[in-house]
């Protein structure tokens, strides 16, 4: 089973999904992230899916769960780098990632987090 590394930069956690994850690894990542948010008192979580080739209902649910969970732990989640083909497929699948913030790339994701935090101050 693959374990996805969680990087920490300041008070932001960054996860970059690099391989086709099996369901168990997805659940482990969810738990690891919840623990890391608390442990590092993180204010933001960025999930980079720029090399992810498909997002099915399982991964989609993980993204929504992580967003909801980090909100409850006082952090914001941004999903960055979704491929156009993935976005088209998600819409047709019927998955509504309404509660999940997205940005086109890592840089824009970090800028979005900064913006959200300065607005909250």
């Amino acid at each position, binding site marked *: 089973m693959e374990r996805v590394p969680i990087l920490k930069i300041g008070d932001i956690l960054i996860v970059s999904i690099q391989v*086709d*994850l*099996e*369901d*168990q690894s997805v659940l482990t990542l969810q738990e690891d992230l919840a623990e890391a948010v608390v442990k590092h008192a993180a204010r933001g979580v960025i999930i980079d899916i720029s090399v992810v*080739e*498909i*997002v*099915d*209902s*399982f991964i*989609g*649910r993980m993204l929504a769960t992580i967003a909801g969970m980090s909100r409850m732990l006082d952090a914001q989640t941004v999903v960055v780098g979704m*491929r*156009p*083909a*993935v976005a*088209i*497929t998600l819409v*047709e*699948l*019927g*998955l509504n990632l309404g509660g999940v913030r997205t940005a086109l790339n890592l840089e824009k994701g970090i800028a979005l987090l900064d913006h959200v935090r300065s607005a909250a101050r």
Partner: protein
Amino acid sequence: MTAAREMPIASNGDVVLVRQYVRGVAVEMGLSLVDQTKVVTAASELARNALVYAGGGAVRVETVENGRRRGVRLTFSDEGPGIPDVDRAMTDGWSSGTGLGLGLSGSRRLVDEFDLESAPGKGTVVTVTKWGR
């Protein structure tokens, strides 16, 4: 053309292997990137259903041809409990468990042809076809 291949679906790892193999065949059949993504996503949903609800099953992956069109056909079969009410199972958002209830209904939208046969106690067979443009 690639010969038909039968793959087991007995673990989460098998679901990953099915996704990867279907991707390869879709590329070979000349499907566009969006169509590859759609058929691989449908394959992932249907393989997971066989694993979760039937404790496992198998998929037959084959190439199809119709005149100048080429495509990929996937037949998922299991000998699980079957689906008592197919219409309800095909409804967006209906799940017997804690799922989003999008696997079957969403997969139908992602492919060109979709056929589901299920009988309680006998199992379920789902056949989907995605054609190149």
